[in-house]
């Protein structure tokens, strides 16, 4: 029988693999929360390449700069800057029907922030209108872009929840992205019970937008929250790298691993273990004592031990004063001045 930890590991890795490959329509609406410290781009690229491998139709609805993809014919890019919701949904449905009705499709909306600014009240309806049994939605939201105020109070009242809150309720999977370098540094600080370091805008340094170690090459950390139909959620932290890191039952090889199993994460833990074994300061001198030296040291009777004995030389509080044999620095004329 497998250990519970082992079971959890296999289950959660399979879950992420299923989510990334969009198998069985596992998650109709996936929300990616990224920041300046870790961009969602590597994960979106992963989604696109898996969708291409599975021969899905991919629509990239771009609200910012269009992705640079000179050689991808499977993907349709829709420029959505400044479009109204009506026009946008027309364009999307036109692109979907031209790809073939009933074909499985992945729709990527990146980023959702402009949409949440211009149509805060209509975003959930718009997104659910795009959903169908054959489409999966992938929305990217930048968490560190402050939401600009709505054009008028009537359009979206101040008391209504922030668009991100609505999206959070609506999403079936929420993936928050973290920079691996930052996660390691935060863990190290936590292990020492120190305050975790801040990065980028939180550093509070004038003129710093992105901290060093952001978007570290080689991989990123995903914090996954998957909501099952039953309402129970699965929470797990993963590391998504560039090389194959784990083998799944069924022979599939995956580029991800549970964060706690990543070698660098474990090395950190080992270092902490080692710190508990008391180690002296390093030096070229021998700072320890041999057995003989120790014994000799214990035998030394310090002079004040005598004084503490009741019947010792002091005899209970008597002041002992032994004048120097010769006092020759008296100056007779001192008082006369």
């Amino acid at each position: 029988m497998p250990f519970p930890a082992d079971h959890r590991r296999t289950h959660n890795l399979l879950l992420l693999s299923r989510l990334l490959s969009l198998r069985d329509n596992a998650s109709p609406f996936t929300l990616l929360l990224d920041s300046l410290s870790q961009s969602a781009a590597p994960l979106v690229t992963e989604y696109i390449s898996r969708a291409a491998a599975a021969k899905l139709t991919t629509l990239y609805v771009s609200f910012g700069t269009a992705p640079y993809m000179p050689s991808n014919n499977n993907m349709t890019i829709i420029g959505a800057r400044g479009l109204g919701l009506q026009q946008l949904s027309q364009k999307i449905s036109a692109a979907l029907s031209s790809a073939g009705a009933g074909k499985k499709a992945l729709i990527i909306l990146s980023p959702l922030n402009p949409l949440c600014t211009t149509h805060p009240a209509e975003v959930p309806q718009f997104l659910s209108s795009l959903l169908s049994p054959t489409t999966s939605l992938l929305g990217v939201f930048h968490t560190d872009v402050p939401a600009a105020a709505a054009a008028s109070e009537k359009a979206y009242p101040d008391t209504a929840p922030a668009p991100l809150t609505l999206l959070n309720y609506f999403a079936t999977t929420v993936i928050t992205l973290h920079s691996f370098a930052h996660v390691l540094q935060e863990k190290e600080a936590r292990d020492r019970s120190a305050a975790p370091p801040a990065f980028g805008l939180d550093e509070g340094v004038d003129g710093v937008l992105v901290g060093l170690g952001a978007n570290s090459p080689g991989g990123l950390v995903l914090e996954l929250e998957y909501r099952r139909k039953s309402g129970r959620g699965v929470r797990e932290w993963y590391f998504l790298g560039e090389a194959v890191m784990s083998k799944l039952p069924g022979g599939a090889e995956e580029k991800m691993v549970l964060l706690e199993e990543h070698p660098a994460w474990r090395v950190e833990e080992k270092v902490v273990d080692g710190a508990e074994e008391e180690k002296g300061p390093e030096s070229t001198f021998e700072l320890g004592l041999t057995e003989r030296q120790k014994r000799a040291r214990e035998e030394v009777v310090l002079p004040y031990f005598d004084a503490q004995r009741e019947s010792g030389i002091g005899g209970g509080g008597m002041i002992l004063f032994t004048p120097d044999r010769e006092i020759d620095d008296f100056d007779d004329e001192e008082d006369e001045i």
Partner: protein
Amino acid sequence: MTTLDEILQQHFLRPGQLSLVTSVLGACASWYEHALISKILSTGDVVIHISFMHQATFHNDCMRKLGIDLAQYSQKEKYFFVDGFTGLFFQPTGQRCSRGCPVVRPSLQGLSDDVNALIEEVLSALEEGSKAYLVIESPDLLLAAGGYSSLVLLNELLDWHDRVYSTTVMIHADSALVSQTRSRFETESASFATSLAHEASILTSLRMLDTGLARDISGVLRITKRPEISAVVSEHGWNDKEVLYFVNDGSVDVFSRGEMRA
């Protein structure tokens, strides 16, 4: 060791690249702008320079110190200057802005028309094999002075960017402008800066030395790359860098921390 040339090279990685340069009050980015423009001009490509902070004379004087006569390039139709500030609050005169003259229409729509017309004109006259670069200085002025929303302005910039080979945008990123969200302007300004930083593939931040002022160091330059959605696997070997720089009259030294300098 990193040279200024290596840093500027990061602006020329691929077509359609958007770069962002941020500066703070104590660490002005003019020198970087001029070094970048002179590098583009030296390759024979065309620069469209939109400045919302300085007039043509300022840029001409600074570039002359680098040994570049902008008037000559302007005559050869390699350099186009748009003065976005001087005529910003003038009454509209109805006349179109021709090449090099200040924009004289106070609305973003007017500005947009003028810039789009200029880009059109430049692109149609572009020689085979040469590229058009867009350098936009301090568009964030329009948020404060024009009262435009960050989204409208950002969409406008990205529309211009889509038409040229590559774009560099320079904005101010003092913490009062990027991390406060109490008033409407603060929110718009922070939203503009962070959205642009999310869109840009290269971010160069200039700031003052953390430890205070120094006689032989002007500031700190941090250059970070953002991963992009792309079929091509990005090349490794580039790590985010932080170097110090010293702006002397007409020349700039770039060096690492603790490096001995002549």
